[in-house]
């Protein structure tokens, strides 16, 4: 179908964008990549009175990668972050996750920050931000605030973003030395939202024993479900870590719901299987970095 009518605003500066958003209040919606918003409009599931198109605002498409992590601007497309060698070097998990986001053509337009604000619990990038303990920077006419991932995702498709605010960037912190990551998911069709998915990060100590292990699970709760499985793995060498025990801990923590795509039990089972695969691969990657 066609989108419902709205007042279109195409601000040329950040200040102008924040002014329009402040005036529009709860009736305003930001348009960046539009790969989630425009389907919602086309299907008439959303009908905001004002659309604030930030695509002309300069300075929002940055990808800054360094030892502390990667900061991604509001207009950085999935494809740009996926292809950035600096971002991949600082945080391989970004590319591992981005390859699972929809299809390449959608990634040419969709933005990482837009995915975060859309806050779909089935989406990959919110899980990555939650796993790493990253944050989202929100700007409004009154100033800026940096909201940690744990407080940013408040429910299915709901975030801490307030009316009048624009998410200008997100920060994905890098992991300590001897860390590895992996992202595994199962979807009914390639490129669809995952029935279940698990992002894992494993850090080894100097003796190559598991020092920290965490997973973030998609499609099994109202927000990305982060589980610290360090204790379940035991302080053992990665090769003999008890990934099955870790998976059991993950299965206990997730709260899947059944729908037409999968039953709750199946999602729980899949999450356990994917947790083992992701943790094992993450540990292997952590080893690789050491060697």
């Amino acid at each position, binding site marked *: *179908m*066609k*989108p*419902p*009518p*709205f*007042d*279109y605003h*195409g601000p040329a500066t950040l200040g102008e964008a924040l002014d329009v958003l402040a005036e529009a209040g709860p009736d305003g919606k930001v*348009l960046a990549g*539009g*790969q989630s918003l*425009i*389907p919602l*409009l*086309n*299907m008439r599931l959303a009908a905001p009175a004002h*659309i604030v*198109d930030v*695509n002309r605002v300069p300075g929002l498409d940055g990808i800054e990668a360094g030892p502390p992590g990667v900061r991604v601007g509001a207009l950085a497309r999935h*494809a740009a972050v996926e292809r950035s060698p600096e971002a991949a070097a600082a945080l391989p998990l970004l590319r591992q996750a981005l390859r699972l986001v*929809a*299809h*390449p*053509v*959608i990634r*040419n*337009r969709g933005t990482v920050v837009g995915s975060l604000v859309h806050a779909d619990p089935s989406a990959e990038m919110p899980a990555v931000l939650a796993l790493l303990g990253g944050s989202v920077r929100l700007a409004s006419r009154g100033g800026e605030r940096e909201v940690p991932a744990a407080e940013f995702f408040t429910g299915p498709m709901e975030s801490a973003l307030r009316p009048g605010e624009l998410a200008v960037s997100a920060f994905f912190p890098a992991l300590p030395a001897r860390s590895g990551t992996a992202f595994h998911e199962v979807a009914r069709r*390639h*490129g669809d939202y995952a029935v279940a998915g698990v992002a894992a990060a494993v850090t080894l100590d100097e003796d190559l024993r598991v020092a920290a292990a965490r997973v973030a699970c998609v499609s099994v709760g109202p927000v990305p479900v982060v589980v610290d499985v360090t204790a379940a793995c035991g302080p053992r060498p990665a090769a003999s870590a008890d990934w099955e025990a870790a998976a059991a801990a993950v299965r206990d923590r997730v709260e899947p719901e059944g729908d037409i795509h999968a039953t709750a039990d199946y999602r729980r089972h899949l999450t356990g299987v994917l947790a083992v695969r992701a943790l094992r691969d993450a540990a292997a990657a952590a080893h690789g970095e050491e060697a």
Partner: protein
Amino acid sequence: MNETRHRVTLTVNGVLHEAEVPGRRLLSDCLRHDLGLTGTHVGCEHGVCGACTVLLDGEPVRSCLTFAVTADGHEITTVEGLARGGGEPSPVQRAFTECHALQCGFCTPGFLCTVTAFLRDNPAPSEEEALEAVAGNLCRCTGYQNILKAVHRAAELQAEEDR
């Protein structure tokens, strides 16, 4: 209801076009209805089928998930712009013909635009890369085997031309 209309300037297939469109005009509808370029097909209108794929500043995008006003001032290539001068089909178009990579033809414009950009960036793709490249486009006639053959054939034709 009187909607505000916005003047947009689009360079489509190298030709400058102007149109006055409401903010909600999808790029796909702008191309088809305002500019009369009906080669771009509209299937699902929510980004799933890929029939409406065009090149925006050279990169394939869903024209049904882009507003015409957002594309103001940008360059667009549609299926009408893929052929060479004099209407000679491009290597990708020739390969689709040779390999019978289409039947009803509805999805074809989206495939042609997607594959054209893909082979520009990756002139010698692996089987897996080619599969990934066309995975975002739906075809309900061919079963994809011939489309994949055409991707590789197009790569060959392009390599021959460049030689």
